């Protein structure tokens, strides 16, 4: 498997699409962090966890780094995976590779690990660059708690991108044409980033309609139904998880939980507590990834390997 891993990793790191995306994220993330740092360095009122703001605060019409990753991250993950297997069929390399003594699942795993490593390298280095920018602009180093939260943020982001990578690989197995698998991937991306939010709102409106003067518990019910539907979306899972990590005051997920705790003054939680809160979201993301893998294996293990 390591042979596959190293070859695929070298392919990714040298590929144009990877380099283009790397600089795209770097520029957007860097710019929004720069603007955020500019507005922060003036105030100096809450030095607690100020570094985290570099990632959560959008400015000047730019989305925050977090928002950018949660919206465009799927595209990046999918783009590293959507042609993983079908392009090998189209190039006629699959017969040569799979007539060597390797297991087919190794091949998929090697490709996945290489992709996720490339993504990890990209995210980690961009986050490092942004932190470095913050150090330069704010003039003081991040605290230990901030560093561990930023590291946690990187890990969750890589898990999130890993899900999309595994979805791309799955589509590259299902569809013989790379164009088809690219389109299918984009369709799923749009579904989860746009349509599911609308759909969740619609469903909630149906079950617990909000009319003027409605009781607060109906309002809470409306929101919790919305949250429940969104729980199925990797995008929402990621947003919840990273919000809890990057905004230490955050204690529950969803508006409903916030409403319930509105009376309690918010003080930052220790990292362990925040982790406990996001644990289900992380497990959810990993589970979705595993489902993609399971389907990939089932389809690919017994497929005929014929280069046509």
């Amino acid at each position, binding site marked *: 498997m390591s042979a596959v891993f190293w070859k695929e990793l070298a392919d990714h790191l040298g590929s144009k699409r990877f380099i283009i995306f790397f600089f795209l994220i770097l520029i957007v993330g860097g710019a929004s962090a720069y603007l955020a740092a500019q507005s922060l360095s003036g105030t100096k009122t809450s030095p607690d966890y100020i570094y985290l703001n570099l990632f959560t605060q959008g400015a000047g019409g730019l989305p925050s780094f977090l928002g950018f990753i949660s919206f465009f991250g799927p595209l990046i993950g999918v783009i590293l995976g959507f042609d993983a297997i079908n392009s090998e069929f189209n190039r006629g390399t699959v*017969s040569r590779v799979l007539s060597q003594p390797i297991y087919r699942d190794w091949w998929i795993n090697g490709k996945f690990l290489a992709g996720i490593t490339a993504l990890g390298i990209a995210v980690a280095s961009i986050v490092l660059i942004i932190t470095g920018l913050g150090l330069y602009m704010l003039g003081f180093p991040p605290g230990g708690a901030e560093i561990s939260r930023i590291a946690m943020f990187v890990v969750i982001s890589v898990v999130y991108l890993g899900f999309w990578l595994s979805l791309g690989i799955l589509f590259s197995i299902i569809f013989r044409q790379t164009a088809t698998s690219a389109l299918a991937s984009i369709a799923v991306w749009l579904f989860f980033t746009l349509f599911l939010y609308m759909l969740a709102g619609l469903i909630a409106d149906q079950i617990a309609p909000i009319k003027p003067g409605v009781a607060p518990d109906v309002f809470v019910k409306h929101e919790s139904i919305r949250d429940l539907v969104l729980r199925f979306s990797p995008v929402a899972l990621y947003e919840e998880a990273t919000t809890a990590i990057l905004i230490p005051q955050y204690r529950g997920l969803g508006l409903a939980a916030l409403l319930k705790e509105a009376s309690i003054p918010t003080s930052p939680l220790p990292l362990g507590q925040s982790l406990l809160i996001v644990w289900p979201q992380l497990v959810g993301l990993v589970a979705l990834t595993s489902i993609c893998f399971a389907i990939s294996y089932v389809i690919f293990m017994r497929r005929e390997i014929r280069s046509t």
Partner: protein
Amino acid sequence: MLVVEAKGLKKYYDGVKAVDGLDLEIREGEIYGLLGPNGAGKTTTILILLGLTEPTAGEVKVLGYNPTREALKVKRLTGYLPENLGFYDDLSARENLRYIASLNRIPEREARGKIQEVLELVGLADVADRKVGTFSRGMKQRLGIAEVLLKDPRFVILDEPTSGIDPEGARQILDMITRLREERKMTILISSHLLHQIQRVCDRVGIIHRGKLVAQGSLGELSAVMEKGTHLFELKVSEVTDELLAKLRAIDGVVSVDAEGDTVRIEARDDVRPQVSRAVLESGVDLLELKGHAYTLEEVYLRYFQE
């Protein structure tokens, strides 16, 4: 020892019988030619041997292993040149081979020497560091052979190694194959639809048609079969008399006549059915049935192999 032992091999694709009850035996150290027209089932047979597809029915052993259940063991010992082979175009020839070597867990240092050796053997040493995307079809084919040799296989499967190659290039490839067999003592299976091209290098050939092996043997044996007769007829009559047999033998073009019960088998060089029915009438017995055999070797041969 038998390198390939297949019995009653079948592969059906919903409705299409790609391989239909194939028996195949390949002996150690021989070059076996699998011949057949397009769509005969050559590639499908090869895919089954390598565990790249599962047979619908039948039993196969390659080097003593079951290719479906012990795929890795078969693949460790078998080199395969696919029919539409592709390489990673943006890697050099050497890098492509290095990847295959690492998939075979050949240690880095050993691989370097081996790669150089096989590249020299196929005459690609000068262009080893050029991207494969710039290679011609013939160069890619030779690179494919180099790759097959990289893992020192005991058994080599070449699917249409000369297709799309000019006659001179094909001759070089075939010469290389015979030389390799001499030097490395490998068993080789070559599939092709061009009999005249590969007959020179094969010890034995099998002719596959519509998924069935219709003839098998050394070229000498096969041509002996061909000499004998090209058309087969089966005749059922009310009574087999000596007079009838004599009349049948006298027909122009008939090679042999065998009687068994009320059935007579006739081999001829031509379609002699009109003469046969006349002979039956003249000898005063009743004709119950006259049918031509489903195929003759000559038909297969002529139609597909001597274009």
